[in-house]
């Protein structure tokens, strides 16, 4: 079975490690794990293609997660790649904004590995 290529976007390197750990603990078979610390860096990574899923924080410097989502629509190699937004805020308005901008799901911190798996697995289609 194909291993998953994942892009994790968060300005905190610790949070990126926590998300990767949660994906592995949730039983997902990760292959390449790419990281970006803001939306602008994430667009560069998305341009390289070969991604199965993107998990992105909302609040980040330089380019936040919502701006990243809006720009991602024009990145051809990332077309169809599902994006799950991760938020600490618990703000419904931000979640609605993210879903309207194209996010396929969201996770609110704190999250368990099981919650990560529940959100991610249905979005993987044939990848998993």
């Amino acid at each position, binding site marked *: 079975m194909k291993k998953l290529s994942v892009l994790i976007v968060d300005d905190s390197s*610790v949070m990126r490690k926590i998300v990767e750990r949660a994906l592995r603990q949730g039983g997902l078979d990760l292959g390449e794990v790419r990281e970006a610390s803001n939306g602008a860096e994430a667009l560069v990574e998305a341009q390289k293609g070969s991604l199965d899923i993107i998990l992105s924080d909302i609040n980040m410097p330089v380019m936040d997660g919502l701006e990243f989502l809006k720009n991602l629509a024009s990145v051809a190699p990332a077309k169809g790649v599902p994006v799950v937004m991760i938020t600490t*805020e618990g703000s419904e308005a931000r979640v609605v904004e993210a879903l309207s901008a194209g996010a396929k799901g969201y996770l*609110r911190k704190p999250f368990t590995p099981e919650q990560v798996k529940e959100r991610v697995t249905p979005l993987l289609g044939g990848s998993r």
Partner: protein
Amino acid sequence: MKPMNNAASQIPCQLDPSWKSILECASLEVFEIMAGVRPVLNPDPIEEPSGEQTAMVGLAGALCGMVTIRCSKAVSIKLGSLMLGGDAASSPSIARDALGELCNMVAGNFKAKISNLADHCMLSVPTVITGEDYSMETVEPNEGLTVALTLEGEPIWVALTIHS
């Protein structure tokens, strides 16, 4: 940060005594989910908050102030290792960042539990202070509450201070 809309003005920005139990619950949930430990509540702490590591997250909007978590360096390393696995947090900078993320999640979880607050209160990025010889004051008038927790005999202090 985005401007708050008019609904924000309808939210009371004075400290509600019931918020202490909400902060307790928010803190315990975060420790349990992210670090896999459940610190014990200490309802009557005899000592003052202490510890070389203080993580703080600012609140702005309907509620202005900050949430802090204070503990010893050893506790921050333990928490970081539990969050990241193995000895990942043996590096002081990783342990500090992990404590900052815990504080961020406690603040977010706290405001998410208060009706109407989640959409009208924003969080700053976490900051972590190292050292014990400092005092921290919020602009007057202010009020606050502190939750005392114990993890394997070591204290962890979670505090909310708001400008009222």
